[in-house]
């Protein structure tokens, strides 16, 4: 017989490490979440990088910020979609139910998956930086730490939307397409391709109510060297999104 200390989130560390190992054993998941964003960054950087490095045109400046932010948002969306898929598969396979019949707290299971996605997000963004450094000489003085933090914070907030999607989708088969539809439909409005100010008024109205807009604003700002204090509004909105979505998800979440 061995004794384990009584902890509020017992098993969190072990389960998180286990889920990371399990994730790495699944080649498709690893390629989708880590390899593709890094490759995308490399290919785009190689194509536009040399031209962007010297150019001082507004387009070049927009691209210099736009590309990394685009890939960062892609990483965040991959994380959310992967979370939606995992929760749906775990529910359908009865894994959630099986864990529920142990002393593990349901909160621990959910926190574990959020942590796994955040760790992967951080790893991907760091890999992206390392791989893309040579194409972005201008990015050499980019605040890597702050940008990673901004991405983790944005991902964390959007993951709470993922939990709502995961709760509403009935079967594992429909989870990824429905999640994609939901998240990708935000892309045209979030200021990623066109600045929000340049959008028609109707689209601007949509922009203001979708959380991704604030994530993009925070990421672009931090990438360009803004201090966090310049983006307290974005941070506040993302915090509210997290709080509201977590409350809603807690009410509608289904374990089986």
């Amino acid at each position, binding site marked *: 017989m*061995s004794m384990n200390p*009584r902890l509020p989130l*017992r098993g969190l560390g072990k389960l998180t490490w*286990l889920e990371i*190992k*399990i994730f790495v054993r699944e080649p498709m998941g690893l390629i989708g979440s880590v390899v593709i964003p890094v490759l995308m960054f490399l290919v785009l950087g190689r194509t536009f990088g040399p031209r962007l490095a010297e150019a001082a045109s507004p387009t070049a400046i927009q691209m210099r910020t736009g590309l990394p932010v685009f890939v960062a948002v892609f990483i965040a969306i991959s994380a959310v979609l992967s979370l939606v898929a995992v929760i749906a598969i775990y529910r359908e396979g*009865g*894994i959630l139910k099986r864990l529920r*019949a142990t*002393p593990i707290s349901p909160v621990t299971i959910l926190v574990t998956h959020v942590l796994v996605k955040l760790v992967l997000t951080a790893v991907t963004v760091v890999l992206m930086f390392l791989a893309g450094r040579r194409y972005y000489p201008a990015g050499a003085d980019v605040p890597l730490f702050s940008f990673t933090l901004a991405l983790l914070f944005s991902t964390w907030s959007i993951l709470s939307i993922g939990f709502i999607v995961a709760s509403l989708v009935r079967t594992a088969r429909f989870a990824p397409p429905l999640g994609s539809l939901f998240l990708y439909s935000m892309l045209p409005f979030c200021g990623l391709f066109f600045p929000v100010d340049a959008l028609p008024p109707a689209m601007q109205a949509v922009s203001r109510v979708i959380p991704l807009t604030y994530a993009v604003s925070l990421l672009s700002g931090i990438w360009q060297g803004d201090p966090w204090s310049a983006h307290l509004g974005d941070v506040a909105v993302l915090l509210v999104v997290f709080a509201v979505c977590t409350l809603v998800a807690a009410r509608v979440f289904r374990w089986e």
Partner: protein
Amino acid sequence: MGDTPVVRVSGIRKTYGATVAVDDVSFTVEAGEIFGLIGPNGAGKTTTMECVEGLRRPDRGRIEVLGLDPVRDAGALQPRIGVQLQEAQLQKRIKVWEAVDLWAALYDTSVDGDRLLDQLGLTDRRDAWFMTLSGGQKQRLFIALALINQPELVFLDELTTGLDPQARRAIWDLVRGIRDRGQTVFLTTHLMEEAERLCDRVAIIEHGRIVDHDTPAGLVARHCPQRSVVVTTAHEGAAARFAGLASVDTVDRDGDRHTIRGRGDDLVTEVIHCLSEHRMRVTAFRTEEPTLEDVFLTLTGHSIRD
């Protein structure tokens, strides 16, 4: 058996929308026994068991497990029970030892995982991914997970469904081993043979209601007291001689084959005496004992496989 039951279920009812899954179900599980809830698929076995495990809350009625309310006192109860769920899965790529290791970390006290895997014959599959295990190996792993915290009460839901007869027998031995170590087992099955060979006591459930409960032998004795002896003999007037025996109710003749039906422990002895007394030449002889399958048929009017 102990004085207070390990499980006491009193008049529980559970509905899903308009469907009544379980209605007015009551039974007890005594300490140290293998108790089986048996019935066809959809009879309410799993719903009942999941209410007792605290995974579902009954609409009505009371449940007491080890003196606790399984829903209200879930935190206190979970460390003392072990659960194997019907058709549960684990992460496809989790290794056997990782699952055991994780489960051990979830409890205050746990038994040695490697020894447990050894007892369940999984040592050579220690590093295998869950998705690569055979059906029997998966079920053995689930038993290991249900036993990791040395529970006082173990729940096994349709443990051997989908397994071949050999794997099934191996699992039965494991379940007997659990009881022999002093733990109480509460299982469900739709296999009457399994219930008969494994369970100390059974409750038969049909359409969400308990039809009867007792030891398998007790149920057979009460509901199907008639047994039969089938004798093949060409002896003249054999049928009449059999019919004259005290324990015999009826004799059916089909050519040389006589099916002698009767009741009581003396039936077989009487038939054997009769054969020897009249020096009958017998070419085939067998006895037929009623089983739980027959009990089920008598109680519900249909076979469990229908």
